[in-house]
């Protein structure tokens, strides 16, 4: 432990995210065992839009997971008295909490410019007075666009090569992407050919025509759509700011990638808070009826009669007061921001369980009249067991559908709430805070548009993919729809 080059930090939201991943794996394992769930997932697998968006979402999830392994790096003890690595003293760790993603994106994270710069620019966005040494050796003040400290710095004085360099990198990147894609596609075809017998060529034809039981063609198409822009972008990002920089000179691409985790936490952890409440209360109300039902109905009618935004606003305001008046609770700023994020998830979850609860109650009321429940009652099976074995598995599809449907609306809600000032901590990078900061700069001449554009593209892709996957899942799991189409 003492010799670790870093100190692992487990934020609460990290814990919940990994817990969620574990839950998802558990669900996968359960689905594989149950033929009905298995068949439903196979229907999702045949849905091309669903698989394509699942592929994209997976990329987002990988980014989010990388961003959920936090640590504090060991300080280079150059200045401290304990320099030289004296054995007795504990190593000192930085106050700053970093994630694995930060480490991977270290160049993006650390290369700050002074202020705004356009995407791929070599010079700043606004003119300022710079000192130029004239050929005769005099220092003169000129108003010009200053060169960026990092963006295109490798070009040196040869700024004319700027366009050519970018072009080269893009072509290079595209070629690499195509190569990588081809490798994956060939491997898929070979794998399919081995699994089902036949030649890779025949397997490839089947993939291409969508003849296989799984929408491989959609997966490969989505992969192409992912690789083709991503690889050139990665090559460019080494020496440029692909999406420019913001007011304080931070790389926008870095911000956008960091926003992904915030969006995922909001979209997923909230449902984690909401699910137990709505499942428990909904099933209990529907199964036991009587005064239990009356009470639970009263509870959710009352809660849902407070307009959502206002309830969230009030709750978040109160939470802010609570956090602000108790600064002693938090060790680091990251911890505070993280807890604030979690609190937001809890508040969102507590205000949004009513819809699913009502749905589950209604479905339970219907199910409990079914004959297989009565058969179980005729055997004297206990209520708890009836709920666990007969009701919950048959409510599963509603829960899964609600889970994926809610995700996108929660991601959208985060942006609005952060804009209104009741969202995540202002220091936490999220789509909402990005838009909020960028919005003010729209009025500038010439306009600073890149932050907004980057946030728009990433958020739109994420939400669209989530929506399409939600549709695919709903089509596959809804018993009314599963029969048709």
């Amino acid at each position, binding site marked *: 432990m003492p010799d670790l080059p870093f100190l692992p930090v487990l934020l609460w939201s990290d814990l919940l995210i990994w817990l969620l991943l574990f839950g998802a794996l558990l669900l996968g394992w359960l689905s594989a065992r*149950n*033929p*009905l769930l298995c068949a439903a997932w196979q229907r999702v697998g045949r849905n091309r839009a669903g698989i394509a968006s699942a592929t994209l979402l997976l990329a987002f999830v990988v980014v989010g997971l990388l961003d959920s392994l936090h640590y504090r790096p060991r300080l280079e003890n150059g200045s401290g008295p304990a320099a030289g690595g004296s054995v007795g003293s504990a190593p000192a760790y930085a106050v700053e909490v970093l994630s694995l993603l930060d480490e991977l994106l270290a160049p993006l994270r650390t290369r700050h410019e002074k202020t705004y710069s356009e995407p791929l620019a070599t010079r700043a966005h606004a003119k300022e007075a710079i000192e130029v040494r004239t050929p005769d050796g005099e220092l003169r003040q000129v108003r010009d666009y200053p060169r960026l400290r990092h963006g295109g710095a490798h070009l040196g004085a040869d700024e004319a090569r700027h366009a050519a360099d970018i072009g080269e990198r893009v072509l290079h990147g595209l070629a690499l992407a195509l190569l990588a894609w081809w490798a994956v596609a060939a491997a898929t075809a070979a794998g399919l050919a081995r699994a089902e017998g036949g030649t890779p060529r025949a397997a490839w034809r089947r993939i291409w025509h969508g003849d296989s039981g799984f929408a491989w063609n959609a997966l490969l198409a989505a992969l192409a759509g992912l690789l083709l822009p991503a690889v050139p972008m990665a090559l460019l990002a080494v020496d440029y700011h692909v999406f420019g920089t913001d007011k304080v000179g931070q790389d926008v691409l870095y911000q956008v990638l960091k926003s992904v985790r915030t969006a995922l936490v909001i979209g997923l952890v909230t449902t984690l808070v909401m699910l137990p409440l709505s499942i428990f209360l909904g099933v209990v109300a529907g199964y036991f009826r009587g005064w239990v039902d009356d009470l639970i109905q009263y509870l959710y009618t009352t809660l849902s009669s407070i307009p959502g935004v206002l309830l969230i606003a009030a709750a978040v305001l109160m939470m802010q007061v609570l956090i602000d008046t108790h600064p002693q609770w938090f060790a680091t700023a990251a911890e505070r921001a993280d807890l604030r994020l979690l609190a937001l998830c809890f508040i969102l979850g507590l205000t949004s369980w009513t819809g699913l609860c009502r749905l589950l109650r209604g479905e339970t009321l219907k199910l409990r009249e*079914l*004959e*297989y429940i*009565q*058969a*179980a*009652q*005729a*055997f*004297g*099976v*206990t209520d708890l*067991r009836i709920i666990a*074995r*007969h009701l919950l*598995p*048959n409510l599963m599809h509603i829960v899964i559908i609600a889970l994926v449907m809610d995700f996108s609306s929660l991601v959208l809600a985060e942006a609005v709430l952060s804009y209104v000032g009741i969202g995540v901590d202002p220091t936490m990078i999220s789509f909402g805070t990005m838009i909020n900061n960028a919005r003010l700069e729209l009025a500038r001449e010439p306009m600073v548009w890149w932050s907004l554009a980057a946030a728009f593209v990433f958020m739109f892709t994420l939400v669209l993919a989530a929506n399409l996957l939600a549709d695919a899942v709903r089509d596959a799991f809804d018993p009314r729809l599963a029969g*048709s189409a």
Partner: protein
Amino acid sequence: MSREVAVREEGLLTVRELRIAFASGHALLPAVDGIDLCVAAGETLALLGESGCGKSATALALLRLLPAAGRIPGGEVWFAGRDLLRLPEAEMRAVRGGGMAMIFQEPATSLNPVLTVGHQLAEVLERHLSLAGQAVRQRALELLTAVGIADPERRLGEYPFQLSGGMKQRVMIAIALAGEPRLLIADEPTTALDVTIQAQILDLLRRLQAERAMGMLLITHDLGVVAQMATRVGVMYAGEIVEEAPRAAFFAAPRHPYTQKLFAALPDLARRGSRLETIPGQVPALSAMPAGCRFAARCAHAWALCRAQAPEWRQVAPGHRLRCHLDGGQGAAWLGGGVAVPVAGPAAEAPAVTPPLLAVDDLRVHFPIRRGILQRTVGHVRAVDGVSLELVRGRTLALVGESGCGKTTVGKAILQLIQPTGGSVQLLGQQLGERSRRALRPLRRRMQMIFQDPFASLNPRLSVGEIIAEGMRALGVAAPGQGGGAAIAAVLQQVGLPAQAAGRYPHEFSGGQRQRIAIARALAVQPDLVICDEPTSALDVSVQAQILNLLASLQAELGLAYLFITHNFAVVDHLAHEVAVMYLGRIVEQGRVDEVLRAPQHPYTRALLSAVPGPRLEAQPEFIRLPGEMPSPARPPGGCHFHPRCPQAIAACREAYPASSRLTPTHVVRCHLPGQEESALTVSGMKTPPCGGVTG
């Protein structure tokens, strides 16, 4: 063109080589494969078939009303000199409702719930007769009167939910008639209705058809309905018509092996106490139709040619043709043929005097009606209102009645699935009421239930093994582990399923197999009493026969007692020893099967029996027409509940509910009428004598 002339001469509707398929992904699954039929004005062609044979799809295809996935890959439908399949959509609309009208199976869902009856009628009148204003109203009133709706003025302004089931179907018929069609297509028009209402509706349809000289295409699965209604009969099997014959020839000597089997599978008075004929196997799936005769796999007489080559039409008598390779020889032998294998047990022999297994005394189940601002209880639905019965081991008591009479509630109250409001239930001499759930558990082993809908009674998420094991585990019947597995295999074998079925899930089984699983689940805890709640009403005739046979042999083997809840008298006759007839929550007549069915005393029993359409032409009893429908159990009529509908009601009936009159030691009736005042010993109070054990 000569062909067109020929078509016109043949009749009102001529269908040639009609094929129907359903799109499923990229594939087209054929549902109907080249059928020909022809309906002349004034005649009724009955299309008979079991579920899934394509008869309803045919009806919808004629009007081009197939659901979105339905396709018509080929064929011709000639109606009034035009091929409907080639008509532009706009002209087709003039045919729908105008030339051809249709009545659907479910009157409850087929009417628009938010439009008035008058509105829905007027739509047709405006569309096809171009009537307007007062003329529409006048015509609508005439139509409602024609279909036998009392007080049509008021009904015009009412909404479907304010009408009873029978009345809704009358309104549907009025709507169908409004466009003055020349052909009426009736798709199972009475399947959703009770027998007494069914008889009314069939009566009405016959009358209207005669008055208007309409052609009628009647789609049904019920041989009894065919016998009453048809001029000619076409039998469908797996998307083909396999036999077509005039009614008389059809009922006298059906020729196709499938048709013969259908007749043999019907429970009937003639073969009481014997095993029913069953058709092994299932209808082949749409996606895997055999190349040869489609019935070959299930046919006892099939030979090599049947499996190789699909049979062509063969004329065996004028108007009587069939698709079968077999020669006409065995056609006549359909009724005798070593079918009636008597089984030990269920016949009418009297058992020894034993203490009753189940004794129900004055059972009441009342559901409160809440009304008003504070939802105070303002009255009760008397679903079950003083039912008493007894049942001994090895016997079957049938509880018969129309829907809403409370028979299912009796079953559930006995099992304590519904808390009875009053009365007592004793099983093996032990009181069931007022026991805690824990204390009830040992007795739950002794009684089990088989439900009506095999699709709702099995949890789709559990494997068959888990379903069967659930009861065993809850009641501690078998030790978990290998012993449990063996027990499950044994009980599956008992109901005729392979042991491997335990690992599979309900959706892989057909309706009949699912019902077997449900029976296995009940048997697994080795009960003494099984309450069967309409276990065959959701099944086809051939499958129903399998289940009835299974129940009979299980009773003979294990000495089970059945409380058999049903609305079907034919089943009662086949399976039961005693019968109790229920009306509005009370038993109106009770006795041994031969007493009640051969010499019914209560007017209601008589009417019910007369309304059951028999699957034969001769010996159809005079139909006693019951006016109206069963009133709501929330507001039962004063006096005898039945008096408003009773054709023989006297003054006394309006004043008091009749006491029980005992006609024989076993036969009890609650009616003021039977002229037995002098002979019957009037039993005081509600308590009826045991109808099971004490004979002899």
